């Protein structure tokens, strides 16, 4: 039996005090000097363990406090209160919310799945990936227990073209001209970063993590550094057409190269094939209303992998409206299925992959694997302030990470994500992530459920899902 894939994680402390949602406010005025102060009774020891970080001028009490409010509710002088931390409130944007950011920090630190008490606390549904639920097995369809190790759930995907049929020669021997194939043990590659205070050390951390996880990482050709050579096997150089000639050595050493689709990439593909027959070619093309047809053309031209991408929030601007990455990638998938050529190419989708559930949902919506980008930066403590986009300094000095530290944080994050993917696969009763691709039958969509139930009762839906607007 082949070795079971397992991601080893261990706690890696953050370099900076993480921004917490709530903040304790306590002041001395009005203190009654009780013999037994409530602060001494904190069962988390928040008041005893708090320290002051000189460099960041920050009190650590909020990182220890678990929000039980016992001190707030017990102090006789009522001099302790807790409220929202304005820094937390301002963090991120409407897609990359503060909650998402801080949950990724937690996973990068601990490598653990976020587990908590009490029921779900969020909105009923939402835009993007939040308008679908994954299904489960009930009573008679066995589930799979991937987490406690009682059953092995395979998250491996193979990248490349697959043969649609075998052929045999006169002697009955199979004639195989199997195209190259790469197996990665998780349905994720690391995508090109849309922003970030990037440096050689950042790329070393990320490429190191990719190598240890045995997946691939896209790195722009201009960011290449000879120190990255040790990870060359796992690096996908991203090249423009002009760079193909100037970076021949990179193409030589890579298993896969990525070219940005210029609309005439079929020709480039042909040239690459002739010069480097062993190198797989991934073409990165934008998701839009013409994408299904474009992907068909590229697939028929022999691309091994097609990377379809949305913007970093998963949005796809089409003529009629702004769609979400999963909606268009479903169309791409369905189009190829209709043509009977879905397996002749691997589809990787990206844009808006912010949490583990998005990986599973992206695969359900037709991708073989997804490309993870921004969360890699979150693992390195990015706060999504986007100062780097304006050429300003990074508040958490991402450019100065130690590669080993960064690598361990990213491995933790992906390890936690993989465990969560195992949870949903197990609940669905699937033992293979490959079985999940395009399997919309194992998902439920807001629109469908509304139409089948409330639509029958109340008629026509007039509102877009009203995300949290209360009367």
């Amino acid at each position: 039996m082949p070795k079971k894939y397992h991601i080893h994680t261990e706690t890696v402390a953050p370099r900076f005090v993480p921004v917490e949602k709530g903040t304790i406010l306590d002041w001395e005025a009005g203190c009654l000097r009780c013999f037994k102060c409530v602060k001494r009774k904190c069962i988390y020891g928040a008041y005893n363990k708090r320290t002051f970080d000189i460099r960041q001028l920050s009190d650590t009490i909020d990182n220890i406090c678990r929000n039980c409010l016992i001190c707030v509710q017990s102090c006789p002088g009522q001099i302790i209160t807790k409220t929202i931390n304005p820094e937390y409130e301002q963090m991120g944007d409407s897609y990359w919310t503060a909650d998402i950011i801080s949950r990724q920090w937690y996973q990068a630190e601990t490598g653990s799945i976020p587990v908590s008490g009490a029921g779900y606390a969020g909105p009923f549904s939402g835009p993007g990936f939040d308008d679908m639920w994954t299904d489960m097995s009930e009573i008679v369809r066995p589930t799979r227990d991937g987490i406690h190790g009682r059953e092995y759930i395979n998250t491996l995907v193979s990248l490349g073209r697959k043969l649609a049929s075998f052929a045999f020669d006169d002697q009955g021997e199979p004639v195989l001209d199997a195209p190259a194939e790469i197996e990665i043990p998780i349905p994720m590659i690391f995508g090109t970063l849309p922003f970030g205070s990037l440096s050689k050390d950042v790329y070393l951390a990320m490429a190191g993590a990719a190598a240890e996880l045995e997946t691939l990482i896209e790195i722009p050709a201009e960011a290449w550094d000879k120190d990255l050579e040790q990870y060359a096997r796992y690096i996908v150089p991203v090249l423009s057409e002009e760079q193909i000639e100037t970076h021949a050595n990179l193409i030589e050493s890579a298993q896969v190269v990525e070219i940005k689709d210029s609309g005439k990439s079929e020709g480039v593909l042909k040239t690459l094939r002739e010069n480097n027959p062993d190198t797989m070619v991934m073409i990165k093309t934008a998701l839009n209303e013409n994408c299904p047809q474009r992907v068909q053309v590229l697939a028929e031209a022999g691309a091994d992998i097609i990377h379809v991408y949305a913007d970093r929030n998963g949005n796809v601007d089409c003529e009629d409206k702004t769609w979400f990455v999963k909606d268009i990638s479903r169309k791409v998938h369905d189009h190829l299925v209709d043509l009977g050529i879905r397996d002749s190419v691997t589809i990787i989708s990206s844009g808006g992959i912010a949490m583990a559930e998005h990986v599973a949902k992206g695969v359900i919506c037709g991708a073989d694997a997804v490309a993870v980008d921004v969360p890699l930066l979150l693992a390195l403590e990015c706060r999504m302030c986007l100062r780097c986009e304006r050429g300003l300094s990074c508040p958490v000095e991402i450019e100065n990470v130690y590669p080993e530290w960064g690598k361990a944080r990213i491995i933790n994050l992906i390890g936690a994500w993989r465990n969560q993917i195992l949870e949903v696969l197990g609940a669905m009763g699937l033992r293979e992530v490959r079985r999940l691709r395009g399997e919309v039958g194992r998902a439920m969509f807001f629109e469908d459920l509304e139409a089948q139930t409330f639509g029958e009762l109340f008629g026509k839906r007039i509102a877009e899902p009203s995300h949290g607007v209360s009367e």
Partner: protein
Amino acid sequence: MNKDLRAHRNVEEHGTPVLQSSSPSEFPQVECTPCRFRNAIGKYRLRRSDACVACGTCAEVCPYGVHKKKLNKMARPKHYLCTGFECNKCVEACPEQALSLDENPVTKVIGDRRWTPDLLISTWYMAETGQVPPGGVEYKIGDSGGGFDRIRFKFIKEPGEDLDIESFSTRIPLNRLKDGRADVEIGLPVYGGGMSYGSISLNTMVGRARAWQAWDSFTCTGEGGYPQELYPYDDHVITQVATGLFGVREETIQRVKIVEFKYAQGAKPGLGGHLLGDKVTPEVAAMREAVPGSSLFSPFPFHSVYSVEDHKKHIDWIKAMNPKALVSVKVSTPTDVDMVAVGSYYAGAHIIHLDGSYGGTGAAPEIAKKNIAMPIEYAIVKVHNFLKEEGIRDRMTVIASGGVRTAYDVAKAIALGADGVVIGTSEMVALGCIRCKNCESGRGCTRGIATTDPELSQLMELEWATQRLINLFGAWRLQFVEILDRLGMTDIRELVGRTDCLRHLDYEGS
């Protein structure tokens, strides 16, 4: 805010709210049971500056009992009773301008989209007084933007004055198979969900049992054994048989009127249960016949059930062991939940208990809580309609749970097609839960509710817990009565499946 509900309250001596004593009846008495922590949390905060001369004007003008004069001093204001800026009487009346009002900053860190600060605060209020809160506190809906929170009733009349509360029936039968087994009826269309010894403290567990007994309904042991302390309440206890079979013995099955098979839990459908080692104290371990300090996993699914035939065998097993008991089958809400319900009927179950995906838990992976299986609002409609089409709706009791937070949620669930509901989180909130979500870790709940830590468990007294829950259910019953009255009904059973009484704000014609 509805006038009639308040009509039942006497505002006594600067507004300490008490219920008018109703005639000695089948209904338990509400008794004022304030927060057990010194500083109750309310929506607003009043500050009294040193300029106060203790003239007592504020106490005279306040309709809600916030201010009180004690001897020649003003007592600490009861902030949590204050209805805020819409009243503002004391602030305006103060001759010394010593009072100032602001929103309580704590409301920014408590609660969430499903359980808004308003819902927490109003549930605390109901548990204290047995009444709905005055003022603008939202006690009917949360802020999730879908499902119950977007559904409203189409009332045909305004709240009536002086309703005869007792002339309305909120009782529902649970045995609709009429198969010679116990004819169990419950006094409210609600009973308590499974919470195990181990996940919650003994006082929580017994307090629940006593409150449900008072209202002639049921609590559920969850999967973790049947502590001796529950024996006096046997007729109001449902015992659970879940996949780990922790604490299940022939004797426990025979004690009760209802046995519940837990196939799945809405908060973590398709996944097993998990009690972290920290919470496995020697007592918990003894009850579960396990080793103290070691984490306990309930697998998923029942490893003895891989077909509908196995499922029937399971139910037959319980029926043979306890010839009087009803059997409830608790499942979660996959896409084929309607088929599951029909299968359970043919296997001989009396109750199909659907637990929707937004249900409560003592510990679950966040990815599961949010993503796996469908919200209960859809599942009720699917199952109700399918059972009707199959011609067996009258022979099965449909119970819904998973995100039912308020009396209005209960009534909406019934109007969508359930016979009754199961609750859990609302009870925890009544006992002082603030949804800090740390039930699972370390010593458990620091507020002494969901913990078996010997020291923390002492934070809550049994009498207090019992009365808080009795009060909450009393407040809910008042609301059921009002809803029925406003729909022109007198019996909660009339409301089942009456979707014509509902409108959805996101649909045409609402």
